[in-house]
């Protein structure tokens, strides 16, 4: 019986820090834990007694990579609590803002964080020595997405323009028109990059996931929809807690989410694509056919393809929204607070993001609950690791470690969202 221990002190190219612990005894993987030690920041506690008008600015600070997602779920929940119906033009502008975040976040992950795994580099910067054009064109796509967030939201990180009911100021038609040309160029690049990604070497690995995502009758889900799953869950944001629960485990400051009746599930680009491919933009759909991606796709390593298709979709949608843009006037209606509970569910780049707030009659938060995508995927990430490590149990430590790290990155985990220090330890007693 061999005894080997492998450690990687920091799992890189993820947002935040955590640790992985594998224990292998007699060629059996006994134990696979994704340990998250990110220091808790207690948002749900200090949100109490803050005004509803402060909530979108505060929750943005949960995550520097997807602040728009937090703002979108929060305003939806606030509007739900106060019985506010938003203007169709506000809705369209919010979708545009969200498209910007999907583009910048997905491109960041695809090219800066995930692609180096497939091509065998430590980072995109190192990758750029041999693949300069690939990295440069990715940066230009990212820039086009960020430009949307900057113009609509005010700045790329922690936008300042989102409020309950609408926006502080509606951008002018000219401001948005200026975004069109870089977005059109980005769309061409994005289509090329989907074809490029389809040529990557994907490990043969599939699991039978329960996919969970929003679904909308006519739109690929982003700002709204019903919460559905591949095993038949179909509910609105109010019913989320009937089906899903969070549990605390000793090895993680992020809570684990599970489907009450069945256990782990998967949220994010792959879940959205499997549940909603019919509502992708025509260009994204034709690309999916071109590259021969058959659904359901149960290979988590192929999540990079789902992200690529979603980038194309978001660019298409953004260009359309800009062409049809009419500034909401006024940019926001007066919002009158009332006591009650409101729910919000939108699709963050990494998956379903659910919020619940209870307000008093002055509009102060009495209680808040936020369930980020990464805590929903955490049990599934561990299950993937267990099965993957078992299949590769005879591989040399280096190969096993590289695959396990890549497998975690399949989920684009945002550990800061949920809670950091990702150390990879493989224990072979």
């Amino acid at each position, binding site marked *: 019986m061999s005894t080997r221990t492998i450690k990687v002190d920091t799992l890189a190219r993820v947002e935040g820090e955590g640790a992985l612990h594998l224990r292998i005894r007699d060629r059996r993987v006994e134990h696979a834990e994704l340990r998250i030690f990110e220091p808790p920041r207690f948002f749900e506690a200090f949100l109490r007694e803050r005004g509803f008008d402060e909530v979108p600015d505060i929750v943005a600070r949960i995550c520097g990579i997807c602040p728009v997602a937090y703002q979108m779920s929060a305003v939806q929940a606030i509007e739900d609590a106060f019985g506010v119906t938003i203007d169709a033009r506000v809705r369209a502008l919010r979708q545009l803002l969200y498209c910007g975040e999907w583009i910048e976040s997905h491109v960041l992950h695809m090219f800066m964080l995930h692609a180096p795994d497939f091509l065998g580099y430590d980072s995109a910067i190192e990758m750029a020595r041999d693949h300069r054009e690939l990295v440069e064109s990715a940066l230009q796509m990212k820039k086009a997405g960020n430009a949307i967030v900057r113009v609509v939201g005010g700045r790329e990180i922690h936008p300042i323009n989102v409020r309950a009911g609408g926006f*502080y100021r509606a951008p002018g038609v000219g401001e948005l028109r200026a975004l069109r040309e870089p977005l059109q160029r980005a769309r061409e690049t994005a289509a090329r990059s989907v074809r490029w990604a389809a040529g990557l070497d994907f490990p043969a690995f599939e699991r039978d996931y329960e996919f969970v995502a929003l679904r909308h009758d006519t739109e690929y889900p982003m700002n709204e929809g019903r919460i559905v799953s591949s095993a038949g869950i179909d509910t609105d944001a109010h019913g989320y807690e009937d089906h899903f629960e969070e549990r605390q485990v000793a090895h993680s400051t992020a809570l684990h989410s599970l489907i009450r009746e069945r256990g782990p599930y998967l949220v994010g680009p792959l879940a959205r694509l499997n549940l909603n491919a019919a509502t992708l933009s025509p260009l994204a759909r034709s690309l999916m056919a071109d590259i021969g991606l058959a659904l359901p796709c149960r290979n988590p390593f192929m999540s990079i393809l789902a992200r690529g298709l979603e980038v194309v979709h978001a660019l298409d949608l953004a260009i359309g929204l800009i062409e049809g843009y009419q500034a909401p006037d006024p940019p926001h209606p007066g919002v009158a607070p009332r006591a009650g509970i409101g729910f919000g569910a939108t699709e963050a780049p990494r998956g379903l993001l659910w919020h619940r707030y209870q307000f008093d009659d002055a509009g102060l938060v009495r209680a808040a609950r936020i369930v980020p995508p990464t805590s929903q995927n955490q049990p599934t990430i561990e299950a993937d690791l267990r099965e993957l490590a078992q299949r590769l149990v005879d591989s040399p430590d280096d190969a096993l470690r590289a695959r396990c790290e890549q497998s975690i990155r399949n989920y684009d985990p945002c550990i800061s969202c949920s809670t950091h220090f990702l150390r990879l330890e493989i224990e072979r007693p």
Partner: protein
Amino acid sequence: MSAERNATTDAARARNRVPMRQPARGPLRRPRLAVWKFASCDGCQLSLLDCEDELLAVAGAIDIAHFPEASSASGKGPYDLSLVEGSITTPQDVKRILAVRRQSRHLVTIGACASAGGIQALRNYADVKEYAAVVYARPDYIRTLATSTPIADHVPVDFELRGCPIDKHQLLDVITAFLAGRRPNTPAHSVCVDCKLRGSVCVMVARGTPCLGPVTHAGCGALCPAYDRGCYGCFGPMAGPNTGSLAARWEALGESPATIRRAFRSFNAWAEPFRRQSEAQRDPGEPQATAPDGHSDRTEPGSP
């Protein structure tokens, strides 16, 4: 020449020393950069990756030796410049920041968490055990300090870059400045000055919208007034802010003491001038707020 004084923390703690020119070490040696994360949202270090037009040029000019969010490779110290994001909230991080300082020729904090404790410093006004009980079913599993504190409370800091988030152009300037041995060009005046430079109409004078611009450190480009809203202070206090006068103006606009207190207690809640003003705002006659609903509804750990 004295370096710009930063009002986030005691000037004695954050000395913002003038960077020194590098000693000559041979023409081919690129300066080495490290990026570190403590309790934070990742947004400030993301600002470096958001420099889409400059990133590859920066990576050519300097050796990004340690940046876990972007690279699996981790070059050992010492580093010429460490950028530190995040605040200190755990016993381990108290030790880790000492190790970072030992390996770093210059240490620059990036953002409100590292420079002032961040939004998570709201715990400093509360009972962290009660906070943990709200979020976690088993708060006893959680190891955390009662306070969230800025980096300068723990080690000497050479410069504090402001903002929640930082501005990426200021970040590039600071990196360039430290590596070139010059002083960073980050004006310490108020948002009001930038607002005038931008040509925005004053939201407080013209519309009576409460605004923290008069006491807030510049750096954002006076963004919020340009979007028809008051500044909410995410760059923290300017040098020598007259917070008392501004609070009186807010009161005259009809804002309650509780609202004013909350305004000073956000992303830079633990920065000294904002902290003092928020404490001054506590109205002794104000009725005690009823206790918020304070129990975690999360399931206990155990059987699935």
